[in-house]
């Protein structure tokens, strides 16, 4: 089931009503568990078995680590191999068949294996628990029902945020009381998320598709498509996250923030602190830091004889490993790998330049607003690589003559850019309202009627924009 299907409205209304009618924590958790499996198995019931198996493996791994601390690293390694193995099996089966079609039997070549919805997300979510139990950053969860709920909680199940056990398990183990304030705030957040997805992202989407699929675009059309996809990706993915966080907040459970105005970032590192935060921090904690500090890695990076090592090369190596892993996770085509390496290169170049900037200059804050548009340009180019599967086509199109193009081509490009300006304007307006207007109006009498009117406008816009074939969320494919 998807957040933007009409069925979800009925499903959530029923779950919400029953949930707050149940007086006990255990009853509430059981309802959420049943609802989560129903939500996930709505289209393909067999997917529930896969979700249950991944969750159960990590639950048992946690218990095993607790009993045999000395074998913790080996248990984590076995769980990683099993969980990531299943993920890779589904994710790269098509690539494997294409690559080895000459030597594979007909019975294997004709197999069609699709990626189960959300498999990556709940695999990472569950692995975070096993690794954190081993690192002793979280206590083992003895209750199977509570853990199954942690592993399958429906608001964040299919596309994140990739939550952490230290945030979720204490919430599942604490009594929750209905709060009108949480209901209002959650409803507003979910409505805003639906607006971003249905009104903004899905309106830009056909233009972006047309520009990327055009057989003979002009240079301006290529860049209009790249900028359009950049805005669409943010509206789509942050819209999904806001619906997830909003619905969860209405159930009394707070999910972590996943986006923090990423296109206002001034540096590559700042961008990753603001974009898909839950996954970026997951990569930081479980890939990047081990790539820097694990005893195994230290053995082969230490300069012989000195026992010393260079922080710049160490972080660079770890950055490339992490971003390559991120690229490979996104897909098996070369553009994703190049996309990962591109972002690692940008971060490395920035770090190298920063190291040469004089001390005094670093403290001057005025430079920031010069770097925001530069970083936005870096992001747009990254988005173009991400979206364009053919690297040869990407290279040839980026090198087109910027001034060439027919009148019609310029009209298509400027129309798309105008749409991006409108969508971007809506996002900027929301930021200004959130930061400067709402804090002043919140306590005033006019605050509530204004807020309700705004929500009504958002709801009207959402329902009048719902198409019969609403596009899936972009991140469902990963």
């Amino acid at each position, binding site marked *: 089931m998807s957040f933007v299907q009409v069925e979800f409205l009925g499903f959530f209304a029923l779950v919400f009503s029953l949930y707050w009618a149940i007086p006990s924590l255990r009853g509430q958790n059981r309802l959420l568990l049943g609802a989560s499996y129903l939500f996930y198995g709505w289209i393909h019931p067999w997917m529930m078995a896969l979700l249950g198996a991944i969750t159960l493996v990590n639950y048992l791994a946690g218990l095993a680590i607790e009993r045999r601390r000395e074998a913790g690293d080996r248990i984590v390694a076995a769980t990683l191999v099993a969980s990531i193995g299943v993920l890779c099996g589904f994710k790269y089966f098509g690539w494997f068949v294409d690559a080895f079609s000459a030597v594979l039997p007909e019975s294997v070549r004709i197999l069609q294996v699709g990626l189960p919805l959300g498999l990556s997300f709940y695999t990472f979510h569950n692995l975070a628990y096993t*690794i*954190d139990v*081993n*690192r*002793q*950053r979280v206590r083992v969860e003895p209750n199977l029902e509570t853990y199954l709920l942690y592993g399958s909680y429906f608001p964040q199940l299919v596309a994140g945020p990739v939550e952490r056990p*230290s945030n979720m398990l204490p919430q599942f183990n604490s009594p929750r009381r209905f709060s009108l304030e949480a209901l209002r705030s959650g409803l507003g957040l979910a409505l805003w998320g639906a607006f971003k997805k249905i009104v903004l992202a899905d309106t830009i989407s056909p233009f972006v598709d047309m520009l990327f699929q055009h057989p003979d675009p002009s240079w301006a059309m290529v860049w209009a498509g790249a900028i359009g996809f950049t805005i669409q990706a943010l509206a789509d993915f942050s819209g999904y996250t806001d619906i997830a966080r909003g619905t969860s907040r209405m159930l009394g459970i707070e999910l972590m923030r996943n986006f923090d105005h990423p296109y206002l970032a001034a*540096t590559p*590192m*700042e961008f*990753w*602190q603001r974009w898909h935060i839950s996954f970026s921090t997951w990569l*930081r*904690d*479980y890939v*990047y*830091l*081990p790539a*820097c*500090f*694990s*005893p195994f890695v230290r053995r082969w990076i230490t300069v012989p004889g000195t026992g010393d*090592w260079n*922080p*710049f090369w*160490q*972080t660079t190596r*770890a*950055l490339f490993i992490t971003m390559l892993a991120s690229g490979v996770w996104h897909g098996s085509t070369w553009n994703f790998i190049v996309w990962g390496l591109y972002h690692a290169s940008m*971060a490395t170049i920035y*770090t190298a330049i*920063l190291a040469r900037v004089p*001390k005094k200059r*670093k*403290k001057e804050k005025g430079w920031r607003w010069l770097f925001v548009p530069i970083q936005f340009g870096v992001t747009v180019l990254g988005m173009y690589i991400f979206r364009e599967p053919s690297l040869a086509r990407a290279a040839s199109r980026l090198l087109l003559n910027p001034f060439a193009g027919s009148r019609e081509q310029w009209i298509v490009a400027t129309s798309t850019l105008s749409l991006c300006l409108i969508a971007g304007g809506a996002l900027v307006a929301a930021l200004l309202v959130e930061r400067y207007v709402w804090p002043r109006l919140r306590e005033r009498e006019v605050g509530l009627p204004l807020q309700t009117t705004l929500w009504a406008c958002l709801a009207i816009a959402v329902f009048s924009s719902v198409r019969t074939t609403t596009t899936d969320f972009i991140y469902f494919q990963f």
Partner: protein
Amino acid sequence: MSTIEQLQSVFRDVFEDDDIAISRTTTARDVAGWDSVMNVTLMISVERAFSLRFKSGNIAGLKNVGELVDLIDRLKASA
């Protein structure tokens, strides 16, 4: 010199800012330039200053300077 005082000189050296004043509640948000890359440089410098070795599991999830001070003290005591 206490752990936090010693740590403050490491911070000033790594972030090239002699005005940095840290406390137990200081987080990455409070120090300009404290991102993932600088965090690794900082941790390597801390290892050198205190003659100890971190594991990735030690560092991941540190919430503030206070937790880093406690970690340093714990590792020093167990060395």
